[in-house]
């Protein structure tokens, strides 16, 4: 599903953010990406989203080589990936319903299909009652659930989350994790970068740890990590 082969990423200012990354993620897996601040987690995600180009190596997504693609093909690659960010990134002047429907409008979905699917995902993230609210009328946890609904409404095979619980209190964070688990249970591959030690330790999923740009640990049913990573 996702494969990094000997991938390096060096930014223009000569910062080597990733070094010789080899990583394979299979369909239906749930993978935590951990590592201290500045380790290179977001960089790895940006490479998948084609926000950055790798300096060396090969990246495959969905059996498609996305190492080098023309910029006009990038939107179509992104449609295979649902993304969730720490800061939610909702459109402020649109309602919850419209924010989710928006993702379907972009790909030209049939209005009937939009009217069917949006309430469905909203009920999945338990937000049916807030469909006509605007983002600033919602709590952080609710906003994040809207962004998850938006990420999955087009049924992408992969969901990527960069610190989705970073701005939330522990209890709300667990709400989010339950939703993500459910989505994973329906077959969506999930890659989640996080600093949430408890969550990683309790969920017992595959853990990939990056330290100073290198992949130093790849463990099934792993924990948040050893002494190097913790402060």
């Amino acid at each position, binding site marked *: 599903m996702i494969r990094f082969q000997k991938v390096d990423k060096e930014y223009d200012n000569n910062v080597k953010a990733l070094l010789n990354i080899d990583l394979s993620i299979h369909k239906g897996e749930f993978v935590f990406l951990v590592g201290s601040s500045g380790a290179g987690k977001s960089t790895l995600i940006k490479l998948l989203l084609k926000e950055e180009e790798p300096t060396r190596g090969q990246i495959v997504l969905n059996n498609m080589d996305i190492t080098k693609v023309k910029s006009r093909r990038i939107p179509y690659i992104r449609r295979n990936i649902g993304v969730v960010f720490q800061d939610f990134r909702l459109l402020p002047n649109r309602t919850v319903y419209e924010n989710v429907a928006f993702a379907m409008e972009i*790909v030209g979905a049939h209005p009937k299909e939009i009217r069917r699917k949006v309430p469905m995902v909203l009920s999945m993230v338990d937000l049916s009652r807030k469909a006509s609210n605007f983002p600033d009328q919602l709590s952080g946890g609710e906003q994040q659930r809207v962004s998850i609904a938006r990420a999955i409404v087009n049924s992408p095979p992969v969901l990527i989350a960069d610190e989705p619980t970073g701005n939330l209190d522990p209890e709300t964070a667990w709400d989010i994790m339950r939703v993500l688990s459910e989505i994973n249970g329906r077959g969506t591959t999930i890659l989640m970068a996080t600093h949430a030690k408890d969550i990683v330790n309790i969920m017992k999923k595959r853990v990939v740890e990056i330290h100073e740009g290198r992949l130093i640990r790849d463990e099934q049913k792993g924990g948040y990590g050893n002494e190097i990573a913790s402060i």
Partner: protein
Amino acid sequence: MAMRLRVFKNIIKQGFQGMWRNRGMGLASISSISAVLMILGVVLILILTINNVVLETKTKFDEIQIYLEDDLTSVDLDNIEDKIKDLEGVLSVVFLSKDQGLEIMKEGWEEESYLLEGLEENPLQNSYIIQLRDIKYAEDIVPKLKVIKGVDDVKYYQDIIDKLLVIANYIRFAGIGVIGALVLISIFIISNTIKITVTSRKREINIMKYVGATNGYIRGPFIIEGILFGLIGSILSIAVINYGYEYFFKSVNDKLYLLLTVYLVSPSLLIKDITIIFVAIGVGIGALGSIVSLKRFLNV
């Protein structure tokens, strides 16, 4: 195909929504476009009028009129006419008696012709109107006409036409220059206006990109917004120019500058051209303005 159509419909819908949301900024774009078009309209009318003047003058004056001394016999007249016809470049010769001349004058003055009624005797002279095959023959013919016995005076307008042509050319060039500069300025203004709205919506654009929106999908609504601004601006200026010119035309007509109106373009003729030109330029400026302002924002 149906999918593309829906995407296209979405883009247009968002364009209209965007225009409504940015109506404050839009006002700046719209007024700059209509201001430019109004100036363009005035320049255009000026150029057209001058073209008309040149054309009218040319057709009117590639003829030479010779005025005859009074009390010539019909034999004398025949003689003169034969001599004229022998000259190279003469197309036709028509005799115009002074009574006919006065009649024509009366018709031309219409309501003011009563002024001519009070005349005790006809102040005009008998004349021949000589049509030339081309104005270029005038120079050779005029001296020969002057020495024919019985000819009192020769009138032709070569030098007037020459001067007119030169002036008309200057004005045409200046007009085109002014129009070009104005179009550039208004593209600059609208691109800046749209740039401001784009910047304020940078976040939104970024989000759209992460969700997988194509550049066309993001750009489309802004371009439609620009086109709508251009369209509204052009409609405004078409209305102003049309009514303004009609009013001007009528007031000129009313105030007995009868001779002038011959040279003015009729408003009904003008409106068609102005509409086409203004809509094309307004829409062009609007679309180009947005495209220019969006170029930078699409590389994420």
